[in-house]
């Protein structure tokens, strides 16, 4: 065991394939592992979404390719190869997986429930968190604070592999008898806690177990991040010289650390209810169904800010670089993030306005929730301020950052409707919420992820991604994204409930004024397919550029932060000598300087703000 620790500091040692690419202890490799893992899971989660989007647009029509043809349905005549296959399936006595979940290729309502449940679970826990916190957190923290690796490299590796284990357990759920968990990503009890009420047996158990494993993985990650950021900053890297991305990751690590154990305890209680005969969430046994909601949202509200804060941090890195200007109001950006994190603990009840909890609580939750608009406003206006009198370069990362800002504003503003308890009476559990979710997590987090991949790719792989392909991917994604999710606001206002497999069962949705919900759903689905197809461009760009991209120089964007000070490709141990930091990360276009950027490692003599720091000064 001891040898491992030495290896990570040994620059000349040749490593075996397994040590280097699989059980790697190097934070950069672990970050890349998270990146590839997250991208693959993004395909899975998105694929599930496309599957149920089909059902929403054309309810009860067989899915193309897999399902039977229209002629077969109407006339019983075998017309395609799929029809023949289905004839065979119906004839033999075995009930296959496909027959249970998609008889004739039509998505069964119970399977529909599993589909959106797993879509959301995968997207939240196996895509956005692993990408933002796992990939960028691992890659950026040691590089940006100027140290050689994480505080606990082994813990770091275990964090990735337990994450993988969680994913395997989660995916296994699709293939157990009874089907996968179908109680929504929120897993409301007693639907989720009593086997007989949903008919789902091991699917829900595995869902719980997988999330507990994920919790352990995040716990290991956050212990590492917190320790590393507190203890291992390079000399001169004071708290207020930290890049905002690091601040964001630090705050997120604290949120993860404190939030996940709560849901772990709640998940354990669900497991006890399901498997040991307790009745924590069952009224007939003296339990309380609202208890689950309180515990879940106490975790899940901080969780949604876990999904957005790193995105905010990364956008705050990219905007100044491509605006060639300091970030506007650095300290207020930091305090705004701290305020968001703090407030996130006392607003969970806004998911429960209509749940039957005491309406008097609704009032306080409404006020605290709306207060989150204040730090969010600070952030938004500071991003705008950063663009004021700038010199903007429209690179691919910049486009994504600008999309992040504008889409986050839409998502945030729709949050204000829902935060308003009386209005939420009407729009709760409608597509208005679904629109909100996706504007913040896709428009926000995922665009930040896309931008971040483009921005840090040269440091990760030593090569550039293709900018033209990147722009094409950006514009198709951006337009299709709005095509998918903007009309959902309209559906929501029309009263379209979420989590329903067949909207056409409802008269008021068919008669929705001025346009029926049906054509809107078709439009959404078509845009969703375009959005999905566009992601292939990203995938191709990533994998092609890893091997064939234009070779990148050390500091291609002319940025200030320490990761660009490290050689490309970054060796083991990151830096030749640990750098000395002289000032904050956003000293762009300093008057009188010879170039328009001033790396954190360079003292900026004449600048009015960069008082020279004596060499060897220490972190505070």
């Amino acid at each position, binding site marked *: 065991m001891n040898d491992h620790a030495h290896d990570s500091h040994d620059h000349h040692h040749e490593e075996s394939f397994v040590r280097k690419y699989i059980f790697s202890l190097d934070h950069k490799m672990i970050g890349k592992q998270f990146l590839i893992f997250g991208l693959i899971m993004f395909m899975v989660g998105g694929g599930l979404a496309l599957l149920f989007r089909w059902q929403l647009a054309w309810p009860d029509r067989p899915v193309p390719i897999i399902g039977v043809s229209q002629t077969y349905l109407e006339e019983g005549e075998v017309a395609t190869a799929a029809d023949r296959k289905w004839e065979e399936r119906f004839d033999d006595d075995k009930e296959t997986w496909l027959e249970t979940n998609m008889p004739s290729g039509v998505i069964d309502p119970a399977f529909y429930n599993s589909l959106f449940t797993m879509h959301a679970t995968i997207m939240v826990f196996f895509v956005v968190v692993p990408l933002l916190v796992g990939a960028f957190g691992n890659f950026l923290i040691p590089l940006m604070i100027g140290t050689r690796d994480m505080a606990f490299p082994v813990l770091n590796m275990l964090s990735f592999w337990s994450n993988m284990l969680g994913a395997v357990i989660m995916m296994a759920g699709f293939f157990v008898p009874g089907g996968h968990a179908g109680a929504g990503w929120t897993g409301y009890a007693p639907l989720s806690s009593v086997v007989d009420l949903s008919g789902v047996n091991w699917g829900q158990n595995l869902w719980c177990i997988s999330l507990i494993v994920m919790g352990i993985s995040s716990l290991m990650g956050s212990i590492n991040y917190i320790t590393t950021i507190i203890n291992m900053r390079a000399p001169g890297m004071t708290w207020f010289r930290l890049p905002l991305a690091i601040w964001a990751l630090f705050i997120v690590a604290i949120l993860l650390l404190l939030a996940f154990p709560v849901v772990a305890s709640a998940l354990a209680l669900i497991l006890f209810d399901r498997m040991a005969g307790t009745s924590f969430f069952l009224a007939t046994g003296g339990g309380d169904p609202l208890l689950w909601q309180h515990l879940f949202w106490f975790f899940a509200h901080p969780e949604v800010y876990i999904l957005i804060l790193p995105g905010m941090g990364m956008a705050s890195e990219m905007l100044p670089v491509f605006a060639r200007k300091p970030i506007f109001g650095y300290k207020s950006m930091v305090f705004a993030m701290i305020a968001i994190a703090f407030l996130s603990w006392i607003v969970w009840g806004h998911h429960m306005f209509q749940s039957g909890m005491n309406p008097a609580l609704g009032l306080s939750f409404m006020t605290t929730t*709306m207060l989150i608009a204040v730090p969010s406003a600070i952030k938004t*206006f500071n991003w705008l301020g950063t663009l004021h009198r700038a010199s903007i370069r*429209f690179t691919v990362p910049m486009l994504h950052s600008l999309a992040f800002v504008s889409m986050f504003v839409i998502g945030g503003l729709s949050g204000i409707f829902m935060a308003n308890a009386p209005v939420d009476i009407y729009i709760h559990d409608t597509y208005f919420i679904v629109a909100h979710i996706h504007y913040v997590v896709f428009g926000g987090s995922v665009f930040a992820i896309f931008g971040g991949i483009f921005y840090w790719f040269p440091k990760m792989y030593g090569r550039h991604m293709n900018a033209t392909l990147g722009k094409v991917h950006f514009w198709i994604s951006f337009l299709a994204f709005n095509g998918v999710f903007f009309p959902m606001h309209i559906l929501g206002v029309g009263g379209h409930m979420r989590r329903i497999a067949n909207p056409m069962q409802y008269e008021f949705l068919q008669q929705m004024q001025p346009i029926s919900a049906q054509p809107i759903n078709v439009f959404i689905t078509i845009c969703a397919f375009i959005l999905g197809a566009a992601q292939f461009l990203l995938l191709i760009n990533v994998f092609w550029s890893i091997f064939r991209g234009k070779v990148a120089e050390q500091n291609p964007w002319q940025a200030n932060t320490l990761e660009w000070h490290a050689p490309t490709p970054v060796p083991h141990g990151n830096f030749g000598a640990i750098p000395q930091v002289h000032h904050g990360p956003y000293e762009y276009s300093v008057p009188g300087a010879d170039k328009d950027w001033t790396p954190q490692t360079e003292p900026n003599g004449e600048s009015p703000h960069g008082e020279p720091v004596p060499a060897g000064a220490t972190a505070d």
Partner: protein
Amino acid sequence: MKWLNFPAWLPENVSTFGQGVDNLFILIYWITAIVFLAVMAVLVVFIIKYRFQEGRNAEYIEGSTTLEIVWTAATTVIVFGLAMLSLPQWNKIKFPSQFPGNPGAVVQVNGKQFNWDMTYPGPDGEWGTDDDLQLENQLHVPVNEVVHIRLTADDVIHSFFVPQLRLKQDALPGRFINMWFEATKPGTYEIPCAELCGFGHSGMLGYLTVHTEEDYAAWISERWGE
């Protein structure tokens, strides 16, 4: 551009408190629309005006405390104002102590997988007696009269939702939740279930029939005689 005016998509409102909800919705709609358009306008102007041009450099501006204070204060005022405005509306709809009295009908609604059971207490006004009337998925109420509902569920959580009434309330197993409404227009409205409750959630559907005064009297006498 009618489709951008979200409030136009709201279904017709047929309850006395619905207008209050709609007004709040419209108010927030205009506030957020203006904020959004302002932010986008500034963004677009900035990215056009301050795009990279040969010979012009970015300016070194680190921030502005005055501006910071201005937008913090402005947002705080707006959101607190909104909270204060919505307070009475919320109380009116959800606080049992503020429900209007003299109900023209009292019904127990019971959600179960995957139906709504409506139980009328009958002339004696008590549940659990012989003259109770139980209907499946049919709720009949008089127009322009207050209706009190006792909401509960048998198995899992369901949610009683009537879009045209602007009313939604989760039904919890083992608990009775009181709510009220007053419909202003006769007709039949759907009662979808709005909380995921299992494979039959989609399609769990009841009907609310709002009768005119005479119709309702006739309906009552048909069930219980005079």
